[in-house]
C-alpha cells in the first residue's frame, strides 16, 4: 500500500522506539504501578453525602448507585482504604478534611480529549500511523491539564487524531501527580481510528475516498490479526517459527488481545454502522464509537445489541441543523442513544488546547450538565463522566467510582458534578491533594478539626 522507501524509513524510525515499545508492550494492557506509597499522607474525609457510583440495585432498578449520607472516607497509600457509613471515629494519624456540608464524588474521567499533546497530534503524511504513540510526547504540565483539575477532572484519555484513519495510540494519565511516570495510568490507552470526515481533508496521499479508507483500515486490521495469531501460536508452542517483530503491529496486537479498546471517531448513521461492522463484528475488537453525531443515533439499537460496543458522545450534544431527522427539533444526542437502548454511555469534551470556544478540559462536568438538560437523568449524566468512561477504557479497576481499593481520586464540592453554580472545592488524586480552591480551607490540622468559616469569594 505504501511506497517501500517510506516503509523503510518508518521501520528504521520505529525500530528506535521499538526497544522501549517492546519493553512496555507487554505491560501496555495492564495498569502501570500506581502512585508511590512512601510519601502518601493519610486523610479522613467527612462528607455530607458520598455518591460512590458503585452499583447498588434498589427495588430491582439496576441503574441505582450507592449513596451514603454523613459518611467517612479513609484515604491512605493513594487508595481508598475504607468508606464508613456513619460518623465513625477518625483513626490516629489521619488528617481530617471536613466536608460535612459538601458532597464527595469520584474524580471525573475524560474519555476523549487532545490536551497535553504538545508537538502536534495529527501526523498527516500517510493515512495509517499505528506505530505512533502519543504517550511519547504527552505534556502533563500543559495549562489545559493543570486547569482540568480545577474542574474535578482527574483522569484523561488524551489522543492523536483525527486527521488520519489510524492516528496512532492514545495514553491515559492522571491530571496531577509527582512524576510523569507515576501519572500514567496506561501507556497504551486505545487504538485511535477515524473512519471518515476529518481524514477526508486530504490527510494522506492515498485513499481520499471513503472506500479507500475502509480498505486501508481493513488491510491493516487483517495484518494485525494475523500477526496476533502468529504470536499467539508461537507463545503456545515454541517449536513453531518465531514471527518477525513488526513495531507498527505490536501496538495493534494489544487491541486484538483484548487488552485495550479501539476508539473510532465517526458520525452519521452510516459511519457508526461501519465502525461497528468492521471493528466490532468482523474483527471482534472491543470498541468505543466516539462523537456519533449527525444522526448517528439512528444506529443506536445496533450499538445496544452488542456487548463489545460502547458509545461516547461529544463535543456536540445536539443534532439540529446536522442530523438525520430534519424536523426542526433540537435532538439531544445522548438522550436519543439512550432511548434506543444504549446504556453505559460516556460523554467527552474532545478538548484541544485551552480556549473559550472549544470546550476546555475542566468543563467536562458542564458537558454532562448539558447532556442532562437535553433529556437524560442526572445519574446517567454523572455516570457518563465517571464510571462509564472508566469502564469503556478498561480502567475501572482503578478509577471511576469510590470503592475500597480503588485510587483515591475524589472531588469535593457543594452539590453534584452537574451543578454549574457551585465550584469544585477540593480534588484528591492518588490520595494527594491536587487542588484546593482558595478560600475553601477544608483541610484541618490533625489536632483541632474545627471547620473554618468559608470565605465568600
Amino acid at each position, binding site marked *: 500500500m505504501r511506497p517501500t522507501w517510506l516503509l523503510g524509513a518508518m521501520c528504521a524510525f520505529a525500530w528506535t522506539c521499538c526497544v522501549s515499545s517492546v519493553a512496555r508492550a507487554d505491560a501496555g494492557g495492564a495498569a502501570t504501578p500506581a502512585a508511590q506509597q512512601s510519601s502518601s499522607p493519610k486523610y479522613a474525609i467527612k462528607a455530607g453525602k458520598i455518591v460512590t457510583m458503585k452499583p447498588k440495585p434498589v427495588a430491582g432498578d439496576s441503574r441505582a448507585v450507592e449513596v451514603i449520607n454523613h459518611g467517612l472516607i479513609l484515604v491512605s497509600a493513594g487508595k481508598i482504604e475504607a468508606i464508613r457509613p456513619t460518623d465513625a471515629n477518625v483513626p490516629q494519624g489521619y488528617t481530617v478534611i471536613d466536608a460535612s456540608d459538601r458532597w464527595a464524588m469520584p474524580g471525573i474521567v475524560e474519555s476523549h480529549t487532545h490536551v497535553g499533546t504538545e508537538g502536534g497530534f495529527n501526523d498527516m503524511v500517510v493515512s495509517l500511523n499505528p506505530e505512533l504513540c502519543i504517550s511519547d510526547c504527552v505534556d502533563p504540565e500543559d495549562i489545559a491539564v493543570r486547569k482540568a483539575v480545577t474542574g474535578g477532572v482527574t483522569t484523561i484519555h488524551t489522543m492523536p487524531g483525527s486527521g488520519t484513519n489510524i492516528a496512532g495510540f492514545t495514553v491515559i494519565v492522571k491530571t496531577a501527580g509527582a512524576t510523569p511516570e507515576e501519572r500514567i495510568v496506561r501507556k497504551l490507552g486505545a487504538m485511535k481510528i477515524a473512519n471518515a470526515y476529518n481524514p477526508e481533508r486530504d490527510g494522506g496521499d492515498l485513499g481520499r475516498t471513503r472506500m479507500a479508507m475502509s480498505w486501508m483500515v481493513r488491510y491493516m486490521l487483517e495484518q494485525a490479526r494475523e500477526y496476533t495469531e502468529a504470536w499467539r501460536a508461537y507463545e503456545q508452542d515454541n517449536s513453531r517459527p518465531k514471527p518477525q517483530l513488526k513495531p507498527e503491529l505490536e501496538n495493534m496486537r494489544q487491541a486484538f488481545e483484548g487488552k485495550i479498546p479501539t476508539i473510532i471517531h465517526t458520525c452519521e448513521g452510516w459511519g457508526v454502522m461501519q465502525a461497528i461492522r468492521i471493528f466490532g463484528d468482523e474483527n471482534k475488537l472491543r470498541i468505543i464509537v466516539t462523537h456519533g453525531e449527525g444522526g448517528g443515533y439512528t444506529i443506536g439499537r445496533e450499538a445496544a445489541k452488542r456487548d463489545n460496543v460502547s458509545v461516547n458522545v461529544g463535543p456536540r450534544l445536539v443534532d*439540529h*441543523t446536522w442530523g438525520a431527522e*430534519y*424536523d*426542526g427539533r433540537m435532538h439531544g444526542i445522548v438522550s436519543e442513544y439512550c432511548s434506543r437502548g444504549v446504556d453505559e454511555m460516556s460523554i467527552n469534551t474532545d478538548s484541544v488546547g485551552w480556549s473559550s470556544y472549544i470546550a476546555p478540559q475542566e468543563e467536562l462536568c458542564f458537558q454532562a450538565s448539558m447532556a442532562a438538560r437535553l433529556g437524560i437523568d442526572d445519574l446517567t449524566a454523572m455516570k457518563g463522566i465517571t464510571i462509564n468512561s472508566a469502564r469503556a477504557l478498561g480502567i475501572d479497576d482503578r478509577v471511576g467510582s469510590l470503592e475500597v481499593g480503588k485510587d483515591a481520586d475524589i472531588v469535593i464540592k457543594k452539590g453534584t458534578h452537574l451543578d454549574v453554580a457551585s465550584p469544585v472545592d477540593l480534588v484528591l488524586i492518588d490520595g494527594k491533594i491536587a487542588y484546593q480552591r482558595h478560600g475553601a480551607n477544608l483541610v484541618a490540622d490533625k489536632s483541632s478539626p474545627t471547620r473554618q468559616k468559608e470565605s465568600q469569594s
Partner: protein
Amino acid sequence: MRGNSRKMVLLAWVSFLSTLAWTCPLGRQASARADTSGTSGTPERVVAIKADRIDTVTNGVIQNGVILIRGTKISEIGTNVAIPGTAEIIDAGKQTVFPGLVSPVSDIGLSSAQRGGPASHARYRVADVLYPYQHEYQRVLQAGFTTLGLVPRGQGVAGQGAVIRPAGRSREEMLVAESGMIWIEFRADGRMKDVIRKALESAKNKETSDDPDVAAMIRALQGKIPTFVSCARPADTIHLLDLLKERDKMKLVLVLGIESHRIAERLVKEKIPVVIPASIEFELFTLTRINEPDLLARAGVQIACVPESADVEGLEDFRRQMAALVKCGLDGQTARKAMTIYPAEALGLDYRLGSLEKGKDANLLVLDGDVLDATTTIQKVMIEGKIVYENPWEKSQ
C-alpha cells in the same frame, strides 16, 4: 391657395391611410395568409374554432362549443354560435381550447442586469432594447405563452418593462405595451430606502415633467401603469409596504419568493396581487416541503405564477411545475387562473388578455388534453386570431 390646400389635405389622407395599412402588419399578414389567393386585402378575417372543451377560465368550461373570431378579437363564444359562411373553420375535435398563457415577469432575450448599487432610473425602457430576432421567443411561443412581460433587472428603480407577444419580426409586431410596468428591486436597507424615497418624492403631486425619470414615476404614482416590486424576503416586503404607506393610486404588484406566506394577512388586507414562482421548497433544516403559492392562495392572496427559473427552460417546464403545485394541494382552478387571468390583471391588461371572453384578444391554445397534464402537448398557438404555431409532431398513441 385653396386648390393647393385641398391637394395637401388629399395627400395627407392618402399618406395616412397607406401608413395605416403599413402599420397594421398583423392584419396584413393575417389576411395575406388566410387569403389563399395571395391578395393583401383588408376584409376582416373570420375564424371559427370548434372544440369539445373550451376552458374560458373565467366563465367555466364550454362543452362542444365554438369560438368565433373576427379580426384579432373574439366576437362570440358559446354553444349556439352562428358561423358565417366566410369563416375559416378550425375543427379541434376532441381537443381542449385554453387561453394563451401569460407570464408577467421575465427577462428572456434581454442583456444581463445592471451592476452597481441601488439607483433610480425609471426612464430606461425594455421596449427600447428589444431584440426580436431570437430563437428563444419561438420556444416561448411553443411553450404556450402568448404574452410575456419583460423587465429590466437592476437594484432600485430599474426602469420600465414591456409586454410583448413572442411572435413577430419587428419590435412593433411584438410590443403589446411599450411601457408595461415600472420594475423595482427592493432590499431593506438605508441606501435603498433613500433611493426609493427620492424617486417617489420627485414625482409627488406633479402632473407632468420634462425629466423622463420623473415622468415615468408620475405615471406609476397615478396608477396609469402598474408598479412591480421584487422583494426577496418577507422582511423586505414589510419595509417596502411601510415605505409605501401613502401610495394612493399606485397599482402595486409584489414579486415575492419563499416564506412570503408569513405576511399573507397583510397582503390580503391591502389587496396586493402577488407574482410568485411555481416551486415547492424545503423548510430550512427540515425535510418539510412548503407549497408557497398554495399557502398564499388559501390565505386569500391573488397569485400569478411564474416558473421556478426565469429562463426559457423554466417557461418550457412551467405547465409541469403548475401541475406539481396542484398535486401538492393547490386548487386546480386557481392554478389555471394563476397562469392566465391573474397575470393579465397584474399587468393591467385583463381587459384584453387572460381568458376566453367576448371582446378579448383571440390568444389561445389548442391542446390535446388538459393544460395541467404533463403528457398534454400544445397542438396550436393562436395570437390575435392568427395561428402562429402548429405542432408538427404526431403523437403515436
